[in-house]
C-alpha cells in the first residue's frame, strides 16, 4: 500500500518531467523560432555613416556605444514600440513586448509586428527570449534596468528609456533615432510637436476664460490626475485649469464624492484606457449637480489609436483633442480630425477613420 503510493507519487513527478521535456523541446527546433542573421535581410545602414561609432547617453544615465547603427532592435514596453513606428523604424524590430493584440495601433500602422516573437512585459520579462532574437540593441524601460546586467553579460548593448514627460519623450525619440543612425527622423517629429504646440499656444493666448477640467483615472472616476502627472500637463497646454491642482500626489489620487462635488469641474475627461463609459458619470445620481454633468460636458478620449493621455509619440494629439473639447469655438473637432489624420499619414504611414474620433 505504502510502497504503491510512493511509487505512484514518483511516477507522477517523472511524467510531469518527461512530458515537459516532450512538449518544449520541439518548440526550440521548430522553424518558427527566429533564425537570425541567416534569414532576415540586413537592414542597410543609413548614410549617417557606418564607420564611426555612435555614442549616446541613455535615460538611465549610462553611456551607450554602438559600432554601427542598430539594425535588430528588441522593445519591452509599448512606448518604445510606438516610438519605433513613429520614427519609421519598425522594420528593424526583431522582437517586442507581449500583448500587441490589445493595442489597436499595431494592426493599423504595422500589422507585420503582430508576427514578431514576444519577450514578456514590464512585469514578466523573459531575458532569454529577448536574447534569442539576437538583437544588436535592447531597449529597456527604467523599471527593467535591473536586467541590463544580463544583457551586458552576453554582450548586447542596452539603452534605458524613461519617457515620462514631453521633454523626456523627445529625448527618447532622439536617442532611439540616433542609435538607429537616423536622427533626422526624430527631428521631423519634434519639429511637428514644436509647431503644433506653438499653434495651440497662439489659440489659447487671447482667451480669458479657462474652464476647470477633471481628468479621471483609468479604473474609477473617483480618482483624478494631480498636477505632477503627465496627464495634467495636457490640460494646461490645451487652455484649461486642472480641477485637482490642489491635490498632492504623483499618480492617480483617490477622491471622495464630497471632494468631487466641491471641486465642481466644468469638464470631465476620461482617459483613453478608461474601463467605464461617460454614461456612468452622467447617470450617477450623486453627481447630478456637477456643472460638467448638467452641461453634458463629460468626454472620453478616443481609444481607437493610442493612449493620447500618456507620453507616447502621438501624445500631441491628446492636447489637440482636449483643445477641441474645452474650446470648441476656437478649434473644432473636425479640424482636429484632419490634423490627426495628417499626423498618422505623415508619421505612421496609414489613413485613419476620422469618425473614430468623437
Amino acid at each position, binding site marked *: 500500500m505504502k510502497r504503491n503510493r510512493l511509487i505512484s507519487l514518483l511516477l507522477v513527478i517523472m511524467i510531469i518531467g518527461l512530458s515537459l521535456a516532450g512538449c518544449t523541446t520541439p518548440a526550440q527546433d521548430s522553424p518558427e523560432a527566429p533564425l537570425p542573421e541567416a534569414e532576415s535581410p540586413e537592414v542597410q545602414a543609413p548614410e549617417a555613416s557606418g564607420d564611426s561609432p555612435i555614442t549616446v547617453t541613455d535615460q538611465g544615465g549610462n553611456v551607450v556605444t554602438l559600432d554601427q547603427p542598430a539594425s535588430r532592435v528588441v522593445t519591452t514596453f509599448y512606448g518604445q514600440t510606438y516610438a519605433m513606428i513613429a520614427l519609421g523604424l519598425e522594420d528593424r524590430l526583431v522582437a517586442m513586448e507581449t500583448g500587441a493584440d490589445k493595442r489597436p495601433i499595431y494592426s493599423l500602422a504595422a500589422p507585420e509586428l503582430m508576427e514578431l516573437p514576444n519577450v*514578456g512585459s514590464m512585469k514578466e520579462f523573459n531575458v532569454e527570449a529577448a536574447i534569442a532574437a539576437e538583437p544588436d540593441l535592447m531597449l529597456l524601460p527604467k523599471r527593467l534596468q535591473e536586467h541590463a546586467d544580463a544583457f551586458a553579460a552576453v554582450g548586447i548593448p542596452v539603452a534605458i528609456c524613461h519617457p515620462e514627460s514631453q521633454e523626456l519623450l523627445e529625448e527618447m525619440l532622439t536617442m532611439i533615432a540616433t542609435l538607429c543612425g537616423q536622427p533626422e527622423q526624430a527631428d521631423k517629429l519634434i519639429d511637428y510637436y514644436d509647431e503644433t504646440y506653438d499653434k495651440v499656444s497662439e489659440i489659447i493666448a487671447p482667451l480669458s476664460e479657462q474652464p476647470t477640467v477633471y481628468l479621471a483615472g483609468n479604473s474609477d472616476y473617483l480618482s483624478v490626475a494631480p498636477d505632477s502627472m503627465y496627464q495634467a500637463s495636457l490640460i494646461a497646454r490645451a487652455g484649461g485649469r486642472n480641477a485637482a491642482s490642489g491635490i498632492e500626489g504623483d499618480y492617480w489620487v483617490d477622491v471622495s464624492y464630497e471632494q468631487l462635488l466641491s471641486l465642481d469641474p466644468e469638464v470631465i475627461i476620461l482617459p483613453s484606457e478608461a474601463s467605464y463609459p461617460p454614461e456612468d458619470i452622467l447617470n450617477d445620481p450623486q453627481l447630478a449637480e456637477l456643472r460638467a454633468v448638467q452641461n453634458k460636458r463629460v468626454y472620453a478620449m478616443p481609444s481607437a489609436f493610442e493612449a493620447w493621455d500618456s507620453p507616447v509619440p502621438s501624445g500631441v494629439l491628446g492636447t489637440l483633442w482636449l483643445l477641441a473639447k474645452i474650446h470648441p469655438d476656437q478649434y473644432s473637432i473636425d479640424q482636429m480630425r484632419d490634423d490627426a489624420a495628417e499626423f498618422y499619414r505623415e508619421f505612421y504611414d496609414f489613413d485613419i477613420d476620422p469618425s473614430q474620433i468623437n
Partner: protein
Amino acid sequence: MAKYFRLPKAALFSVVLFLLLIAFVISITHGQFPISLSEILAIVTGGEVKDITARVFFQLRLPRTIMALMAGIGLGMAGNIYQTIFKNPLASPDIIGVSPGATLGAAVSIVLLGSATLTMATGAFIGGIMVVMFVLFLVRLSPSHTMTTYVLAGIVMGSIARAFIMILKFFADPASELAAIEFWTMGSLASITASKVLTIAPLFGLSLLGVILLRRQIDLLALSEDEARMLGVRLTQVRLFVLGLTTLMVASIISITGLIGFIGLVSPHIARMMHQRNNFTTTILSGLIGAIIILIADTLARSLLQSEIPISILTSLIGVPVLVYYMFRQKELRS
C-alpha cells in the same frame, strides 16, 4: 503496531538524486533561447558553439539552474529545521519573521532607493536578518524562553513588519513601486545572472556548512526543553545559532529570488513521508526534494508562456495537492 514499509536509505537517495538529475537536465536544456543538449555537451567538453550560445549558457542558463538548485536545497532544509525546532509541522520561514522581514526590506529599498536588483537584494537580506534579530531580542527581554515565546515574538515582529509594508504600499507609486513590491512577493528567478549567484554563494555555503555541523544539536532540539537541557544542550546559544544560520540561508536566497512559497512547508512533509523518520537525513532529503520542485517550477515558469510566470504561482500549484494529500493521510492514520 503496524509496521510501515520503509525504503532503505540508499535506495531512497538513489531515487531522489536520479529525479534531481533529470530535473537539472530538463532545466538546463529549456528556455526561450534555444540551446540543445548537444550544444551543452559541446560547451562542457570545449567543442565548437556559437559565442552567444556559450555566453547565454554560462551567464544566464547555468546560473539560473544553479540558483534554483540552491534555493530548493536551502528552503527545503530550512523548512525541515524550522518544523523540528518549533515542534510544529506548519512552521515556515514566516514564523520567525524572515519572510515578512525580507519583504519589508525589499519594499523599503523599492520605495526609497529604487528597484535595482542589488539594492533590493541587500534590503531584503538586511530586513530578514533584522526582524529575526528583533525576535531574538524580544525573547531575551521576556522572562520565559520557551519555544512558544519565540513563536509569539515571531508573530509580533511579523505583524509589525507587515504593518510597515502596508504603510509603504500605501505611499508607493501604484504604477511602478507597488507592482514591484507585489512582484517581489511572488518570487522569480528571471533576473538571475552569474554575478548575483556568486554574490550570495558564500553566504549560502557558510550557512549550509554551519547547519551540517550543527545537525546533532538540531536533533536534540526536537526533545522537550527540560530533557534537552538535562542532556547538556546549551539551549539558548544553540537555538540562536541554528536560527541565525537558517535565517542566513533563507535570507541569502530570497534576497535575490523574492519569496518562493510553499517549498519550506511541502518538501519536509514529502521527505518525512518517504523516509518515515525525522532526522538529519530527512533534512537533506527535504532539501533535495525542494530542489526538484523548484527546478521543475522554474523550468515551467520560463517556458510555459513567452513571458515569465512568477515562480510562487507554480510552487503553490505543486504544493497544495501535496498538503491536501497529507491532510487526508493524517486522518487515516489516526482513525
